[in-house]
């Protein structure tokens, strides 16, 4: 677990006068789930977008697989993937067609086999010919997740993947992700507003507040440091106190 997959150094993003991300440094190691948490507007999504090369940082360096993202984005992104509750699939395509398009975009070798496998894993096999626009939000999320695994990524960026899911489906999704992680040694950067989920899923967490990292470590250690009984309470303390 010591090999860093992602190394972030002094990452900064300024929007006009707002410092959305302020000199953030951290690493994600091979096979770990790193949870990014913090109140709305803390900068979680912006960090993820910078790691995907969708937003250009003002300062700082991102290295993924030991190579600078700015120079090697295409090769890096080929082995990464992304899923967000706020980004959808083309809504006039069927589930299977979506996966075919993305299998091609990522130049997946055994497309049919991979797609069949993912449809099974995410239990969307029976709706493979349904149009995306007719899916429930739980089904859409599972399709998004299936897409995010189409290229067997080594690093996965998941932005609030379980938002808008009912507790049952959310729980199933978490189990699935953990299973996948165990099987494939994938690294995952994860955000969620569900603190229980963060505690359960993350090997380590990073607590962001107004663009700054204010705590970092294993969930249990962070809880201890803040002298609280769980992450939820840590979150409330941080979110409600101005001075951090």
């Amino acid at each position: 677990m010591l090999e860093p997959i992602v190394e972030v150094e002094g990452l900064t993003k300024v929007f006009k006068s707002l410092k959305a991300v302020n000199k953030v440094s951290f690493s994600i190691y091979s096979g770990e789930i790193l949870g990014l948490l913090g109140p709305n507007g803390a900068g979680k999504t912006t960090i993820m977008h910078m790691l995907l090369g969708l937003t250009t940082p003002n300062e700082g360096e991102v290295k993924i697989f030991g190579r600078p993202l700015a120079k090697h984005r295409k090769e890096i992104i080929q082995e990464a993937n992304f899923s967000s509750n706020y980004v959808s699939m083309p809504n006039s395509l069927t589930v299977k067609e979506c996966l075919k398009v993305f299998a091609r975009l990522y130049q997946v070798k055994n497309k049919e086999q991979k797609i069949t496998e993912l449809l099974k894993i995410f239990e969307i096999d029976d709706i493979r010919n349904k149009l995306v626009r007719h899916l429930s939000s739980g089904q859409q999320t599972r399709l998004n997740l299936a897409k995010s695994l189409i290229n067997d990524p080594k690093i996965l960026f998941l932005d609030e993947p379980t938002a808008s899911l009912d507790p049952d489906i959310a729980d199933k999704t978490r189990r699935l992700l953990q299973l996948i992680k165990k099987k494939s040694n994938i690294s995952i950067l994860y955000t969620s507003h569900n603190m229980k989920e963060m505690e359960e899923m993350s090997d380590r967490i990073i607590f962001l507040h107004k663009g700054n990292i204010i705590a970092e470590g294993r969930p249990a250690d962070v809880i201890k440091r803040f002298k609280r009984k769980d992450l939820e309470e840590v979150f409330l303390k941080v979110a409600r106190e101005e001075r951090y």
Partner: protein
Amino acid sequence: MRLNRIVALFFRHVYLYRRSIPRIMEVLYWPVLDLVVWGFITVYLAQFRQNLPKFIPFFLGALILWDILFRAQQGISVSFLEDVWSRNFLNLFASPLGPAEYIFSLMLVGFTKLIVTASIMAALAWFLYSFNIFLVGISLIPFVLNLIVMGWSIGIITTALILRFGQEAEVLAWALGFLFMPVSAVFYPVAVLPPFLQAIAQYIPASYVFEGMRSVISKGGFPLDELLWSLGLNIIYIVLSFLFFYWNFRVVKKKGLLVRIGE
């Protein structure tokens, strides 16, 4: 640049047409109506022979040709908007897909649609009016290709502007093409324009196409000069529009607007 990724997005659009009747209609509806109306007018005009007002065939030909340019432009900008509206845009650009691959795929989709439409029109013209486009129209093909390329340039610029200015700029997807209509000499020769518009028309590839078309209809022959002018200008503009898109793509990533597109 990978063909595979261009093909991936090409299929994303082909899947749509395979299933959607309104979309298939869109490919057939306007061209077939154009053809029917144009055909009957021609049949009607044939009765006059001698005192046929010359401007009518000009006018109709121009209408159809302008439509081709307009469709080429829309092929780019409206397909782009579909990705934006279905909130799929970030999924695409979080993949190894590059901006040029994206644009090429839109061109490929548009071009394929056009070929299908043109073939159907040619077949219909043959069945309905025993009119063989390949006898008369072959020399029009290079001109038509020039109109398509000019439409693409406008489409790419429109797309770049929508990326940059967001929803307010979406109306450009329909409007920007028409801005070039007055100086494209679609329905009248460049000579009728006031001097400053003439000066602009000089730099508009379509103006040479339409001047060329008029000279084919009235004098016959092949207006090579016009063709070369429009070709040369088009090459410059398509390259510039790609550069503009690339530059804009970079600016938009810096401003954090790429991830906000459609919001």
